[in-house]
């Protein structure tokens, strides 16, 4: 990004810019893509929490959302498809002092990486997962994913998708995640708060981010990017409001906000290292 405004001036106004590797911009993301919203929300959350660049490791797998760490000025790992949580588990277990964030997508985390996702949740390891759910494999050109809505078109569902969708949040809760939230790329400030609470939470946190794949999903399903953003506005509602809805009115409505939060379960690395302390005297 070429700009004549000195960096200090920008950071003064937008302090979260300090987390950006601006020399690597522009990003690879398409116009209208929601990943940038989630990335910005994450940077703003870190800034508000006062976590410095040197305290953050960001890990990803493969896919559009997994390119995020490249633009984040921290300790970043862009790993193999579906495996981000395995690398993050090794890193976090060895250096628990690093705030560890995983950026992933619906295909990366739920299809090829599904096993790692449920086991990381089960361990309740202190990793914050920002899962960009855009209902499609974007980077490979628009194939059906485990969260593609039924009936939707993808390059591998030319007659419409006939597989049911994963409910990511329900699965995460069932597997043992202790903080589960859902936001959207439309509700930007709410998303920042959800990610912030996820980072603050000691344990496995999942923030599912409903995010439009404007160019590929949108084109395939004849939705403009405005229509996609408005879809999130119209079809999601705060979880408290959703809970008040009678059962028959819930169909097609997606709850947003903190869906599950449990501070009572011990965090994996704390349990491990306290055991080690007993056995070794705490030396690494």
């Amino acid at each position: 990004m070429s700009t004549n405004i000195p960096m200090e001036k920008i950071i003064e106004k937008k302090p979260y810019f300090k987390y950006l590797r601006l020399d690597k911009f522009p990003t690879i993301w398409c116009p209208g893509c929601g990943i940038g919203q989630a990335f910005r929300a994450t940077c703003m959350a870190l800034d508000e929490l006062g976590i410095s660049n040197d305290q953050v490791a960001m890990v990803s797998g493969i896919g559009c959302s997994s390119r995020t760490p490249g633009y984040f000025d921290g300790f970043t790992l862009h790993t193999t498809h579906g495996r981000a949580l395995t690398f993050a588990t090794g890193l976090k277990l060895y250096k628990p002092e690093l705030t560890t964030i995983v950026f992933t997508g619906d295909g990366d985390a739920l299809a090829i990486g599904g096993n790692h996702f449920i086991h990381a949740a089960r361990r309740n390891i202190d990793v914050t997962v920002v899962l960009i759910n855009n209902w499609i494999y974007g980077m490979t050109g628009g194939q059906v994913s485990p969260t593609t809505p039924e009936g939707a078109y993808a390059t591998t569902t030319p007659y419409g998708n006939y597989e049911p969708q994963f409910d990511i949040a329900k699965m995460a809760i069932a597997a043992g995640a202790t903080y589960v939230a859902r936001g959207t790329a439309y509700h930007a400030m709410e998303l920042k708060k959800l990610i912030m609470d996820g980072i603050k939470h000691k344990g496995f946190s999942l923030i599912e981010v409903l995010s439009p794949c404007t160019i590929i999903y949108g084109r395939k399903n004849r939705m403009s990017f405005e229509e996609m953003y408005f879809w999130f506005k119209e079809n999601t509602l705060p979880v408290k409001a959703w809970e008040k809805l009678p059962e028959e009115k819930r169909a097609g409505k997606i709850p947003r906000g903190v869906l599950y939060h449990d501070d009572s379960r011990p965090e994996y690395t704390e349990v491990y290292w306290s055991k080690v302390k007993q056995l070794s005297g705490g030396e690494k």
Partner: protein
Amino acid sequence: MAKLELKYGNHACAEAAVLAGCRFYAGYPITPSSEIAEKMAELLPKVGGAFIQMEDEIAAMGAIVGASFAGAKAMTATSGPGFSLKQENLGYAFMTEAPCVVVDVQRGGPSTGLPTQIGQQEIMQSLWGTHGDKLIPVFYPGNVQEIMVETIRAFNWAERLRTPVVLLLDEVLGHMRETVDMEQFTPDRIEVWNRKKPEVPPEEYLPYKPGEDDVPAIADYGTPGYRGHATGLHHDYTGFPTTDPEMCQELIERLIRKVKRAQPELEKNEEYMLDDAEVAIVAFGTTARAARTAVQLAREKGIKAGLLRVVTIWPSPEETLNRLAKHVKAILVPELNMGQYVLEVERCAKGEAPVYRLNRANGKIIYPGEILEKVEEIVKGGK
């Protein structure tokens, strides 16, 4: 004074790893390597290290690379099917230059094969198993004492070259109890190398800029100021993806070159009665033990046989094998597969001597008598 202990092969590997500074182990149960994980689970917490049993083989490989980036000397151990599963992340470790040690206790393959029996069928896979070009050091000890020596050497070279190193064992070695002189492994006796650290100030730090030895000094993740990026994509000195053809070509050439130029130091063979040998046996691991006895039996019969036991199997001892071919009348390569390393021996022999095979892939070892028989056959053939 010698301090002799009876040690189980897989346990010796685990103990030596800890001596070499290993402080992170991630694994997944698989016969015949599980005892390495079990021993590490016992040892690591006591020395302040981390042990984790992951949800699968792929995850175990991913976890050790993650820990390696955080600064840990890290290891995983597996066998046949598990080694296959690890290949993608092994390639990632090679591409991103993450030091780590991967132990493969070979059993009979392919597929589930013969889980509780011996094989030497991963000789080619250990080098070529992951997609894309690569060169990584592969060590293959021949007894329990040497398992300890080679485990330490594997960690040292992983650190020095910033590369994954594969340590091949086989089911017989892993499950064998043998006397080890622990006096050789006291802290003052063993040499332990550590990865280099960046010497430039943070603002000049380029994680993937190689030094004169072609090895970059990548800071451990969490080192204040020395932030960086790693990716399995082709990348530039900053670690960020690139498709610049010159940079991509140079990256792959350098990754191979850094191991190749260390080859003279990496090379390790044991020569046995080769000075006047007319028939040379080239063998490794458990098969080399039978070959050694076969050489003795042949000598008793007046046949001038000798053994070259290869310990660093990759990069192969190219010149040594070529010299050997010039020096002898015939070479025999017995191995517990359908003919893998023999291809490399043939390549290196460059037609200077005929190269014979003795192959088996049924879970049974090759006995000394069988090797002797083959040697006699070669000699009688007048070759």
